[in-house]
């Protein structure tokens, strides 16, 4: 494209930037924004695009900048200690005892030594001894206090970090003098800090020069940039030329209102379950140990109960138990297997432990509650809900997350149907390849952990657990031995992270607005 054609397609801001750079040679983005009266964001967008088009080039320059340390901030506001002391002397008529001078000036005693040093060095005061007391006598000029350059440099820096040159320009002072002042200030501790920063500086390329040549003319041309209602009402658009746009130029991003990505994944799981003929159920977050553990044949003192770290509750501390018949049957199945053909765990079951309340550790508590209330078989239920684990927060763990769980209660289903339903479920969730590995859960037999092939990482990932509810679980709830209950569940966040391409579980909770806005909604459905 000819330089002129290109210039015609640039926006007003782009052209003004080119002109400004032609004038100045080099500039930082901040300088351009200030000079042209734009915000930095739009200027950055223009610069990005001008550089893409080869009209400008940028380089990084390193620069030393100074900023206020902790003490420096205090001094910038209240004044340097020696100036405060000098002022106190003036106010007292020219002379004070050392201690009193420090006190009046509000300077801590530990700074007495250095402050005396600076008073002498700046020629503001002299020290004399009288009757064993150290006294200070003001010897300088009063203006010297007000005009002290060190102090003015501090005040200039309180506007923000700056290089020597910038400080000089802020104060309209000689650069060398400012440099000396900064050196003096650096002798003190925590007053000014020096640090190296990288800055981006831009300048025109040769092509940029050519385009800039045409900029003024293009800016002044009388053509239609924005099509206005009066152009249409009066028909003036017929007589004028339209300014062409650079159709590739970047624009300000737009974002829709959004549902949370985790919620989107949950909706997707609900859809799959509903399509497969399942009924949605839910249960309480605060649960009794009875439903969370005991009804699931998890012995009260067994390693299995420790597989999940549990939050127990101070308030409410006790829950009611269901009807006595069920409690009695659960008790006997734990103690000696009851009448379900089991050996049981062989210990004395304690009703008090079963009453203890917990924040539910798994949605299996919901499944078993619903089985208790159920009229069936056949029955196909699912639930999705929050569960809690006593874990400290890191990139893999949160003290709470979501699980989903499905159960199929019927007379003529087997392990093969369990695998069949898992395969179908994962396929619908977007995982074509599923394999199965033996596992253990205290409440199931033929326990299995499904693994799905995760394309992005090229590896098999464990995604959930499944099995057939033990007789020790089902029979106490009142089902007879012909009934089989298939069950499976999985962690929703794990699935969501895979679908959304997130590596840190915390991103799903302690969210960053920008991430939420930019994460494509479509990912949850893929």
């Amino acid at each position, binding site marked *: 494209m000819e330089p002129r054609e290109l210039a015609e397609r640039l926006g007003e801001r782009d052209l003004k930037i080119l002109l400004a750079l032609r004038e100045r040679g080099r500039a930082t983005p901040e300088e351009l924004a200030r000079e042209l009266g734009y915000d930095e964001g739009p200027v950055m967008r223009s610069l990005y695009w001008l550089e893409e088009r080869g009209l400008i080039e940028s380089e990084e320059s390193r620069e030393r900048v100074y900023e206020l340390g902790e003490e420096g901030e205090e001094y910038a506001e209240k004044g340097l200690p020696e100036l405060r002391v000098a002022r106190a002397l003036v106010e007292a008529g020219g002379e004070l005892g050392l201690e009193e001078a420090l006190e009046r000036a509000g300077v801590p005693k530990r700074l007495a030594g250095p402050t005396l040093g600076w008073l002498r060095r700046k020629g503001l005061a002299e020290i004399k001894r009288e009757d064993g007391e150290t006294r200070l006598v003001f010897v300088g000029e009063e203006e010297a206090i007000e005009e002290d350059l060190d102090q003015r440099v501090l005040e200039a820096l309180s506007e923000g970090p700056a290089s020597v040159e910038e400080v000089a320009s802020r104060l309209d002072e000689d650069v060398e003098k400012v440099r000396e002042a900064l050196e003096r200030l650096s002798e003190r501790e925590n007053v000014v800090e020096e640090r190296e920063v990288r800055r981006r500086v831009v300048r025109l390329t040769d092509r940029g020069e050519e385009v800039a040549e045409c900029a003024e003319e293009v800016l002044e041309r009388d053509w239609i940039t924005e099509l206005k209602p009066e152009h249409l009402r009066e028909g003036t658009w017929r007589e004028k030329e339209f300014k062409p746009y650079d159709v590739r130029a970047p624009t300000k991003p737009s974002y829709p*209102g959004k*549902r949370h990505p985790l*919620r989107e994944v949950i909706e997707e799981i*609900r859809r799959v379950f*509903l*399509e497969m*003929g*399942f*009924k*949605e159920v*839910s249960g*309480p*977050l*605060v649960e009794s140990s009875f439903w969370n553990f005991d009804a699931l044949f998890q012995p009260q003192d*067994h*390693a299995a109960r420790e597989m999940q770290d549990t*939050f*127990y*509750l*101070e*308030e*409410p*501390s006790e*829950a*009611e138990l269901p009807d006595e018949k069920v409690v009695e049957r659960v008790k006997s199945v734990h103690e000696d297997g009851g009448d379900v053909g*089991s*050996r049981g765990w*062989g*210990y004395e079951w304690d009703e008090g432990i079963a009453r203890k*309340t917990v924040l539910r550790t798994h949605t299996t508590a919901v499944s078993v509650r619903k089985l208790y209330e159920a009229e069936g*078989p*056949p*029955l*196909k239920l699912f639930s999705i809900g929050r569960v809690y684990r006593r874990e*400290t*927060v890191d990139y893999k763990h949160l003290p*709470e997350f979501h699980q989903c769980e499905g159960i*199929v209660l019927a007379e003529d289903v*087997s*392990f*093969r149907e369990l*695998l*069949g*339903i898992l395969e*179908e479920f994962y396929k619908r969730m977007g995982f074509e390849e599923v*394999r*199965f*590995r*033996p*596992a*253990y859960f205290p409440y199931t*037999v*033929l326990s299995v952990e499904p693994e799905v092939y995760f394309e992005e990482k090229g590896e098999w990932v464990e995604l959930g657990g499944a099995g057939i509810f033990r*007789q*020790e679980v089902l029979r106490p709830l009142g089902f007879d031995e012909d009934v089989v209950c298939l069950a499976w569940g999985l962690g929703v966040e794990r699935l969501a992270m895979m679908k959304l391409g997130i590596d840190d579980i915390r991103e*799903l909770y*302690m*969210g960053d*607005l920008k991430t*939420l806005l930019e994460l494509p909604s479509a990912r949850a459905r893929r």
Partner: protein
Amino acid sequence: MPVVTIRHDKLVELLDEDVSFDELAHELIPMLGSDVERIDEREGVIETEFFPNRPDLYSVEGVARALKGFMGLETGLPEYPVGDSGIRARVEESVLDERPCLALAVVRGVELDEWDLEHLMEFQEHLHWVIGRDRRKAAIGIHDLDAVEPPLRYLAVDPDDEDWAFEPLDHPGEEMTPAEVLKRHEKGREYGHLVGERAPILADEEGPISLPPVINSERTRVTEDTTDLLIDVTGTGWRPVLDALHVIVCNLAERGAKIERVEIVGAYERITPTMEIDVWDVPVREARRLLGVELSGEELEELLSRARHEAVFVPEGERELRELPLPDHFHVEADWRELPPVLHDEDVVRVFVGPWRTNILHEWDLIEDAGIMYNYSKFEPRPPRVYTESRADEEREFIGLVRDILARLKFVEVNSLTLTSPEMNYRKMRLEPDGRAVKIANPIQREYTMVRTWVLPSLLRFLSDNKHRPYPQRVFEVGEVAELDEEAETGASDRWKLALAVAGPGTGFSEIKSVVEALLRELDVREWEVKELDHPSFINGRCAEVLVNGLKIGFFGEIHPEVLEEFDLEVPVAAGEFEISALRRAAGW
């Protein structure tokens, strides 16, 4: 769960079969039932988590026994030589109130190099966790038999009695009384709480060899030169004590050692290890039904033998068992050669389960064993033919609608934890705790000690975390809250609430009011009333509650600057909170 370290060369030696590292790590060990944690091919090491139902797999010998069956190298019960040690131990009445159960065994002919020794100690610790429940129900001591001077005594003593002082492990030359061990020894401090007023002591002719469940004596320390072991297990109940002893001696026998019994006399009489075998009948029909595979009786017999049980198919009506090569030093209560105690009216497989298999509680556990030996990867999945109708939860559907409406109003949905602190839930919001909170008894972080009672603080937290992002910001969350509820079965009830907030220069009461009205209009709530509300979290005179048919459904207004300061916010925020169930009723859902 315990992580078991398996060294490839050690396992191959035990298997007496060349198996590649790759096959072991990626096929055999996972398909036996474990979560492989780490694979280091260069070192030839696999670290894997076996499940708490299989303590017998917590050492490489047990893994070898199981793999031999899985791979078809060796099936049925293994032949472990068992004899009598001639050693006797006397249990005194004094220990019955402290830690009553004692079981002992001698294991001869072990060869342990440095790795084996460390592996054995790890095995012991895993068993302490899974069976012993941190040594309380069962604790194991392993001694160099050559250093022991039988007979043994098991008794409880006065912990301060100098006569029972001994050198505990890792403190050679430091003689300590039991009380001093509990106070000064690192294990004493860790497990001292398990010792009552009198300390249990296992002693030989020369003095204590162990202070169970805390520490052994230095004198009987096991080293690489040790060939014969004395193993003691003490505890509070016989099942865990015998389980732990059997698992450990049978795994040592798998590496070629000989097991010898010890006679226990005194307060009770026992000979341990009992090597007792469990007998189960697994109906073939039940296995077919559960596995969904048309297995014959012989096939089921084969699968269960691979699981290292002695299994024999007994067809319906059969009166005599086939001759079994059941090693006769295993102990079976009834004479296993006799007819089944009940004449079976169906095909069964009679299964003899070795004493190291502590998890067989039900015949279904044996069907699971058969399933694992069949190999999970060989099952053909098939869809269930169970007709049911789907039904979505109405409340979730309604919440879905609310979320859609707010997203269309250009709000961004936020997702927060429901766990919070009184600081966040009340104080920062200028509220006094109302005693309605669900409180955690064992929190681990100060930020998470209760369940939130409302959602708005979560939104302010989000705004606070995002104050460097451009304004205006419009956010909402529909989430669970919980409160004490005397009526509820569990003493608390949880419900859903909606919170929404607008933040940024220029926002205020009228913006949030307009949004609330749009939401109500979209939900087809036709009539509502807005009344001024005094709420400490909001600016006085700029807060309102919404009533439908005289019932409160929520409130909104401009957040109080003191609250904004608490959340470090420098822009005005207008916000509101609504009960989902009340909104739903108002909307006629």
